[in-house]
């Protein structure tokens, strides 16, 4: 029961951020400086997720099969390989490395 309340309350709180962003006045968001800030924030937060998703595991910061996989995916993105191909290759690389080592 407590868990259900927590699921509902936290879902509502997460949704409130999403909705709040759409209620900020138009005049404020059409400012190019604000657009620049939103772009910087997006890159920073997503890059942070790349780092965490590559290096962090429940045991803490680790170097494992994900590192070669993400490096390879960077090379593939550089050569303009399709997104889905790169993602599948990254998964396959990490999975195979974990089988072999």
């Amino acid at each position, binding site marked *: 029961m407590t*868990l259900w309340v927590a699921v509902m309350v936290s879902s509502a709180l997460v949704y409130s951020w999403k909705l*709040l962003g759409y209620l900020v006045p138009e005049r404020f*968001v059409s400012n190019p*400086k604000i657009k620049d800030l939103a772009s910087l924030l997006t890159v920073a*937060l997503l*890059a942070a*997720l790349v780092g965490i*998703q590559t290096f962090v595991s429940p045991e803490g*910061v680790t170097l494992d099969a994900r590192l070669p996989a993400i490096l390879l995916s960077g090379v593939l993105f550089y050569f303009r390989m*399709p997104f889905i191909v790169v993602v599948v290759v990254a998964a396959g690389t990490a999975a195979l490395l974990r089988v072999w080592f």
Partner: protein
Amino acid sequence: MANKQPSVAAVSLGVGVATGLYGISFGALSVSAGLDLWQTMALSVLMFSGGSQFAFIGVIATGAGVVPAILSAWLLGLRNGFYAIRMNPIVSVSALVRPLAAQLTIDESNAVSLSQEPDLKNERLGFWLTGAAVFVFWNLFTFLGAVLGSQLGNPSDYGLDAAAAAAFLGLIWPRLNQSKLLVLAVASAFLATFLSALLPAGIPVLITAGLALGFWIYGLRGGKQ
């Protein structure tokens, strides 16, 4: 067509499937953290923000209780508000559609939209297609993961964790040809990783928002452009 950038529909679908597949691991982890199938599905349908969902079940799994779980999910959801500010003029939704647009405002829909700049039509299309694709696949695979749960074994055996990292990298890749954004991306990735060793899940990502703010203020105060 062959030499052009992939179409926005192809990118959206690719992101939807790739992100959705990671829902298997969310479903499996959520059930092992002690939530039942329907609580797990409620998170994927209603919260619908991967970072917040993983933070929520991660904290529950440690036995820290519901209040820290709620707080970390809430804090980690803050970035969606910034995405919403960016999306608002692009989606330019009516009051009726706005609640739906809000629910689909997540890392992936914003990033695909951003990657289509400056084509406004594709920015809008990328947002809706990606949001819808991720919603469908994320919930489908959450369900599968929660049902299969322990039978499936460890999601990382299938490299799903590396796939998620590659997906996030692909989303910011088109922006990294600007040196300011490249420097910010590298700094954010390392700062968040380093801080993850010291701070609870969710907080390090938020601190990189402060880094972005620093770059922005530096730019305003006379850095070039």
